[in-house]
């Protein structure tokens, strides 16, 4: 099951929605989330939800103390980690 996620991503020719991935694997989206989280922990997938604007690195505009309010833009994206 886990390896199928990587295989589908490697063979995909265009971006997939989570819904489509769930349909292809015939698993519930909630189960898929657990598998994705596992691969993210193992460093094989990257989840954009875990990448911030860089508040820790010091957002240089300093316009907003709680971090850049524009960083939330954009949807969540999960991709294979490039091992090349």
């Amino acid at each position, binding site marked *: *099951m*886990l*390896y199928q996620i990587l295989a589908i*991503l*490697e063979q*995909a*020719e*265009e*971006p*997939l*929605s*989570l*819904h489509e*991935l769930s*349909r292809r694997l*015939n*698993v*519930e989206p909630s*189960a898929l989330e657990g*598998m*994705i989280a*596992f691969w993210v922990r*193992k460093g094989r997938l*990257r989840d*954009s939800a875990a*990448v*911030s*604007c*860089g508040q820790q*690195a010091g*957002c*240089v*505009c*300093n*316009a*907003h103390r709680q971090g*850049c*309010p*524009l*960083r*939330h*833009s*954009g*949807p*969540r*994206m*999960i*991709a*294979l*980690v*490039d091992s*090349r």
Partner: protein
Amino acid sequence: MAPPPIPFRYPSPIEREIEQLATLFAQTPALTSYPARWLAIQALEGDEGILAAIEACHDPEVRAALMASRERLRAVYGDEIDIVMVDRRYQFVHDIASRAVTRPALPPTTLSDRIDQIVTHRWLGIPIFLVVMWLVFKLTTDVAAPFVDWIERVLSGPMSRWTAALLGFIGGGGGWLESLVIDGVIAGVGGVLAFVPVLFTLYFALALLEDSGYMARAAFVMDRVMRLFGLHGKSFLPLIVGFGCSVPAIYATRTLDSYRDRILTGLLVPFMSCSARLPVYVLIAMIFFPAQAGHVIFGLYLTGIVVAIGVGVLLRHTLFRQQPATPFVLELPPYRLPTPAQIWRQMWERTLAFVRNAGTTILAASVVIWLLLAIPVNREGQAVATDVEQSAFAYLARLTAPVFAPLGFGNWESSGALVTGLIAKEVVVATLIQVYVGEEPPADEASSATLSADLGEIVYGFGAAVGEAMAALVGMGGITSGTETIAPVANELATAIRAGLTASSNGHAGLAALAFLVFVLLYTPCVATLAVSRHEFGLRWMLVSLLGQFAIAWLAALLVFQGGLALGIAI
């Protein structure tokens, strides 16, 4: 009756190792407090707590056996053994679920699915995206313009008069302090803050698109375009963030795996028109193309995307020639009706960031510009009472003006504004207002206005702005003919800017204005963006961005102005 238990077994190579280890652990007194099979599974999966317990029992035979088991399994499966074991468990659960759960052959189609069939359609998706963008910028200009006009009138009228009266009351009237506050702070910072309604409307539209779930679809649709040109589809996400601000957009390139892809995308991000440039577009478009301001601004945003793709293709086939892009999964959340509270929160936070920036960077820039405008060169005139034509700012700006002369805006006012725009793009507007306000003669009729008349003017002006905005909104819905023009910028400022560009372009002010807008769209990003670029990609790539974008902007503006002249375009 309870269903029969379904035994779970790992594949035989793993089971063999588990059994061997379990037997050994059962014979090790320090480990007998754990169930032996469970302990063997945890040890093979590399559970840190269990490995520490095994380490603590100081039994070399146990350690060696565990190491040997893991090595043998790695040789069999060619991967980390914990992945293989977790995969097996997921497969087991999936098999049971498949047998126990009956799913419909065709999953039910939700409303989101039905909308997506149209919105993310292979051929319809991109035209829909362009229409949505057009609506956003039409809304941004047409609806916000009356409020911009109202704030400008309040700042240049009642606010300036009250400030002058207050300063006169405390003994600071008529001198350098009054000039600093009115010509420097109110004209500079206030001039930029007048565009808050524009940004407020833009952030409203962005929040609406994000919260409704459309923004994810836009990225999905644009991925196809990016791939068509050999670019990485994932690059479009940072580029979308770039519509708001280039700084978080460059940070957003961290979602890309390859460092080279990150650099390439980081170089393209500043071509996406950030919200700080919007006040410049609105100011110039409202002066020169009042009936078509929305279309002009939409065209600028589109130009930014086209140039970004063009430069990306060029770089991909030269400096960044490399491997094909890796595919990815995008979360397409179900469409939702955005909640007013959430929309308001986003609008408020983002607008507040802009206002804070106006209170720091733009305020500092405005004071420096005021100082340079107040200092006479050649010792002609007195400080503060200096003719702006003879000011240090004009002198310095004239040094850069020849660079912009072939582009049609080689007057010192425009050149100076573009140079100060390197600090932050909003400063272009602040500088233009300060420079041209300084050239205006004082308004005599202003001093005679009473407080009640001023208050009446503010309230009446606001009411009129609301009415005009509503009319514009209705006009967008197609109820009116849509030929009405949006409220012009304050007449004096508009006349002065038009006269300046007419002189610098030999009477082709419209073309010069268009070239100016294209230059603002494409030229060197602000210092904050350059700093982030250096932080993320290093000094070399920051310099490429700085110089490369200036060259591209210069060439594009040259093409617009000289090309327009050659084609005999009269605007």
